[in-house]
């Protein structure tokens, strides 16, 4: 469904992504881990062209992401994204945050969009906050709204860019629970995270990145028990034994 082939990306002279080859299949949950600065967020952001690739091929559902002829807005309808800092629209209520894109992009009526929005708000467990503004919500609640906002477009893939990194520890659980439920329903997910418990529990595959390269790809059990790469071993020992 998502296919990177020999993808490179540069920021000026800085080589952020190096010869990335990666395939993500429909229904798969792929967790990308690695030290900061390893290029994992950039990798994720290339999938919906928030970052452009410098060379190589990147397709989503067979459509080339970088091609100038590709209608990026059409492509993005199908790719939900959740950010580290939520990026809810502060001037809109929770409900309006969720209905904006379905109404303006998919042309849904307000009634239809609100029904969908309520459905997903219920799903993430904060239907009662529909009329609130983002500033009245806790971080965990905001992130759950952001997930509902992504889901309301009924995308085939959801991208998560460190969705719990900006949260207070006691709120991480509620967001991860929503993501776990989503994974169990068969959503295709690409998740950049440091949550090892989550990765172990729901990932179909772990992708370990360092210095712009994918160093290792493995099922979680193998990766955690016996990482092949020295760099991965070092990373795991640092992150698990603190």
């Amino acid at each position: 469904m998502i296919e990177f082939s020999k993808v490179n990306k540069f920021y000026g002279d800085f080589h952020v992504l190096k010869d990335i080859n990666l395939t993500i299949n429909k229904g798969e949950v792929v967790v990308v881990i690695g030290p900061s600065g390893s290029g994992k967020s950039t990798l994720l952001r290339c999938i919906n062209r928030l970052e452009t690739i410098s060379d190589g091929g990147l397709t989503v559902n067979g459509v080339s992401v970088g091609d100038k002829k590709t209608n990026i807005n059409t492509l993005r309808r199908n790719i939900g994204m959740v950010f580290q800092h939520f990026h809810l629209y502060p001037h809109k209520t929770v409900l309006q945050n969720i209905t904006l894109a379905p109404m303006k992009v998919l042309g849904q009526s307000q009634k239809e969009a609100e029904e969908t929005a309520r459905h997903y708000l219920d799903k993430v467990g904060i239907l009662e906050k529909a009329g609130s503004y983002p500033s009245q919500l806790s971080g965990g609640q905001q992130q759950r709204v952001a997930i509902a906002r992504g889901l309301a477009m009924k995308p085939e893939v959801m991208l998560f860019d460190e969705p719990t990194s900006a949260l207070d520890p006691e709120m991480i659980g509620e967001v991860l629970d929503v993501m776990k439920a989503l994974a169990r329903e068969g959503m295709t997910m690409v998740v950049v995270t440091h949550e090892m418990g989550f990765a172990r529990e729901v990932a179909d595959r772990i992708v370990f990145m360092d210095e712009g390269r994918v160093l290792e790809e493995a099922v979680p059990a193998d990766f955690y028990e016996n990482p092949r790469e020295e760099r991965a071993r070092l990373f795991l020992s640092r992150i698990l034994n603190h």
Partner: protein
Amino acid sequence: MDFLKPFIEVYTPDHLKFLLQGFLVTLKVAAISIVLSFIIGAIVGTLRYAKIPVLSQILAVLVEILRNLPLLLIIFFTYFALPELGIEMEITTAAIAALTVFESAMLSEIIRSGLNSIEKGQTEAGRSSGLSYVQTLRYIVLPQALRRMVPPIVSQFISLLKDTSLAVVIALPDLLHNGQIIYAQKESYVAPVFIIVALMYFIVNYALSLAARRLELKQS
């Protein structure tokens, strides 16, 4: 109570009527310039924010030139130099044109920086949901930016209203100009006339500030 005498003498119905006539000219010139410069400033500010190649650079140069010239010079230029180049305008039109051009440049900077002050993540969230650039600007960035811009925009409007008085140099029959005609009659009229002229400017501008403050409170 001698010092009150010139006040009583000068505040005659005729004089007051004459001052009000001038004040109406001030308000008319200011209102038209405010509307025009807001529209132009919004367009220029947005185009510059959008970083359209070539166009944005040309606008940047124009804005920088205008912003760094004294308004008085622009007024002089519009009324005295443009006719040499074949563009002739009457006084009121010239005053409106000069004010509009200058204030558009100032407002475009306020609007551009207001748009820039909105976190990039907002645009990313909008774009990644499939909204187009223009839709993202319209539904997400602009509404938030406008709220932040209310105080500086209103103070720009206030300074525009005050700046209309500079057009006395091309004899625009505004409040200050009519005031000058009245106090030219007698030296003792100067202070009373200035006081009432000041009062008129103050009332309108203060009302504008209060309205802006109301708007701000309503939003927060």
